[in-house]
């Protein structure tokens, strides 16, 4: 699956976990902006903060479950109003990444993003 960029703050997609022994996820707040993320698996909190190559387990334990990210990107960077969050899923049938982009409404304001992946 190629990289995708979406203008918006919400994403719903599927991810094929294949037969991987380990599925790893990342959430990258871009454009030099400040931010954090939280990740849930079927409503159970997995981690918060800087999500970087976080191992969520083997494919056989993940298939059929729902992975949810919530991120906040704050407009720290005085050079642009843009914020972006890129969600990476790796180790499954393909390595996928989705970039969500949305400008903050004003200086130093924030955007709340959510991305939900059905693991198949």
């Amino acid at each position, binding site marked *: 699956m190629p990289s995708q*960029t979406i203008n918006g*703050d919400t994403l719903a997609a599927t991810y094929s976990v294949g037969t991987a022994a380990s599925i790893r996820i990342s959430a990258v707040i871009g*454009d*030099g902006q400040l931010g*954090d993320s*939280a990740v849930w698996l079927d409503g159970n909190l997995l981690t918060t903060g800087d999500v970087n190559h976080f191992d969520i387990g083997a494919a056989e334990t993940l298939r059929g479950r729902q992975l949810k990210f919530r991120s*906040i990107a704050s*407009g720290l960077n005085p050079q642009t109003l843009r914020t972006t969050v890129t969600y990476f899923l790796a180790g499954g049938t393909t390595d996928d990444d989705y970039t969500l982009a949305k400008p903050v409404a004003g200086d*130093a304001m*924030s955007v709340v993003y959510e991305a939900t992946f059905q693991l198949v």
Partner: protein
Amino acid sequence: MTTLRSLTLFIAVIVAAAAQAQTAPDTLKIEDVKTPVSPAFVILGVAPTAVERPTTPRAVGLALISANSDTSGNGLPRNLALEVAPYWLSERPALTFAEYDHPSFWQSLRQTASISVATRNGTATATNETPSLGGIGLRASWTLGESSPLEQQVLAAYHAKAKTFLLLPIRPTDAEASAALRPFVLAMREAMKQGRWIVEAAAASSALFPNNDLNQSETQKNAVWITPSYRFQRSTFDAATGPLKEVPTIDFVSVLRYMEDRTVTTGRNAVDAGARLLWESDTIAVSAEHIERFGNARHTRRTSILGEYKVTDNIYVSATFGRNFDGENNGKGNLLALFGINFNAGQKPSLLPPPR
């Protein structure tokens, strides 16, 4: 001249339109209101200070300033500078905050590089035609040193506050998150500047257009300079509420500059070395500077005091008084007296990419 003024007006309209969609913050400090003095302004000699503190280039910035020696105004601005930071004209989804805050040398140059152009009326000729002076400049900077304890404290408080919103059972709105986090973001922005060195390098060139014809130009001045600066860590932080305790900032700025001046017959190559101490509150900034000029130019110096006052969130005025370099005032003594009115074209002008 009509062509140049039409171009000036066109640029002003474009930048104003780009800035119009932006929400101004509720409280702006004087340094937020100011569009930074660009290298192109410095080379034209209309900058109010000769030792300008390194500043963050906006994606697009516009400045209008009037020197009191210029008397030919007809309602349109006589002096204009436009500055563009090309790196920020496109999305940078891979640039994390950590890389932005502590960039490598080359990354720092990329994210701070800007190009500026400026115009100014020249001296009227015998045929009563007023030629135009044009300047073009480049600048980029490198931030040195680790995060200050203040920055680390603010960053930890931001993360703690953000976590409370991330874990809310119902997704918070952008407005709710913004209201809670904005004081921490603004505090972080200021904390990042304190207790660290910023070294800015710049180059600029100016040319005279005798008939206001872009095809006929005469190079006037070329210059390169380096400006190391340091902002003392003076603020304190209340983790419960977010904002930094407001105290006037103090900056030390030094400059080493080489300039080739083709408008004079002797002493064309000058080296300037000097320093500036700047005290700045929300609405008032006062600074003193001293520069020695060496090279094959006659040894001379400039000593001045600069005051700036924020009138509104979009306008500030500046005044500079002191002793200018000998020979800078076209044989009219060395008194330095500049008065400027600066209009801000937006807190942080930004050109957003077109919708996909």
